[in-house]
């Protein structure tokens, strides 16, 4: 990556780096999860679809990680940040690391994350960070296509047979508690919101909810009730699933450090 990026602003507390990691890691971890579908999807079209979405997500993560590395200023590039951090150093949403489960689970997780990324990338169009704004504009276009795909499938499953409806409902109920984390306000968010770099996490909730309600209505699925418990992947506190995912993703660089091909 040689995209021109400005140097870190003076007085940066590390919040900017941390925020870029949050965005990058959600895309990276979800991309890795979707990659697991290759060879196992229910139909060739869905395999192509999910693998293409995975490629976009990993591409977005590369741009964000490369930029995060420049902000950090310690010489870590995108590969080092992806392959040599431990689970507690990852800042992705815990939702992104949840296993693929059945096809309904994969689709519901995708709808929930796609809708959040759409709101996020829209809001980042007002960022004072020009390079982040550019990455968001590019990603926004791709995410809209992902959301068309995932929401179309959720409607087909929810408004399909009794079996597909039951599975979609079960997946939604299972994954819903992980969505609260998206709108949980962290100190870093507040700092970046004040500096005009990123939206506050809570400001994304109304748009996300409207989008999700629209899809669920069409899918004849009910909005699950709110739950008080919140996960904290964005602060590095993860479910047990992330360790296994990273062990597979990082095994080559961990076994043969610096290996290239």
């Amino acid at each position, binding site marked *: 990556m040689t995209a021109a990026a400005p140097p870190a602003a003076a007085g940066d507390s590390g919040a900017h780096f941390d925020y870029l990691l949050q965005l990058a890691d959600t895309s990276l971890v979800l991309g890795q999860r979707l990659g697991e579908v290759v060879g196992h999807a229910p139909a060739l079209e869905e395999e192509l679809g999910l693998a*293409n979405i995975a490629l976009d*997500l990993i591409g977005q993560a590369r741009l964000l990680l490369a930029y995060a590395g420049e902000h950090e200023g310690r010489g870590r590039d995108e590969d080092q940040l992806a392959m040599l951090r431990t689970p507690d150093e990852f800042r992705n949403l815990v939702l992104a690391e949840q296993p693929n489960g059945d096809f309904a689970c994969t689709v519901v997780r995708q709808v929930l994350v796609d809708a959040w990324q759409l709101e996020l990338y829209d809001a980042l169009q007002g960022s004072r960070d020009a390079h982040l704004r550019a990455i968001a504009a590019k990603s926004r276009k791709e995410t809209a296509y992902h959301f068309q795909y995932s929401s179309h499938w959720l409607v087909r499953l929810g408004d399909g047979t009794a079996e597909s409806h039951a599975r979609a409902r079960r997946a939604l109920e299972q994954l819903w508690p992980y969505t609260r984390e998206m709108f949980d306000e962290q100190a870093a968010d507040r700092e970046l919101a004040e500096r005009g770099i990123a939206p506050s996490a809570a400001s994304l909730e109304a748009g996300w909810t409207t989008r999700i309600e629209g899809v669920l209505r069409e899918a004849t699925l009910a909005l699950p009730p709110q739950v008080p418990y919140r996960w904290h992947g964005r602060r590095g506190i993860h479910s047990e699933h992330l360790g296994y995912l990273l062990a597979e993703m990082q095994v080559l660089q961990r076994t043969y450090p610096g290996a290239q091909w």
Partner: protein
Amino acid sequence: MVAEAAHANAIESRAWAALREVRDPELPFLSVVDLGLVRHVAADAAGGLEVGLAPTYSGCPATAMIRAEVAQGLRNAGFASARIVDVLAPPWSSDWLTDAARQALARHGIVPPVGAVHSPRELRGAGAGQEPIRCPRCDSTHTEELSRFGSTPCKALHRCADCLEPFEYFKCI
């Protein structure tokens, strides 16, 4: 000054000509210029050359290949030290395809994007509230989408309900 500017223009024209010969690895009948990937070509007073390239999809596996082929094409034209920079903004979309590119796609049986992306907010689903996608073989408008994702990130798979042939559609994205 005038002589220098004319010299820079001549260098840039030569570079553009070289870039028009660089083919897309997945659509070899299109050049990187036809695809709208070359954003700028700038010669400086010191004889250096900078070429701005827009990546297509974040996850397009051909991006690194395109970059390498652009570098090779420039080297072959005598620009061994040309700098290639990524240009992310404004993002590439199918709106950047030239008319020549659209005609070439159609000649090769790939339906060019129908309509325009305009704003990223106005992304439309294929077939939803837009002009019909015509079968490249029999021109029927009676077509359906088989898969939103095709053999490459830029294409979707459709089928004609009249002649029953499947065909590729260059996504409007």
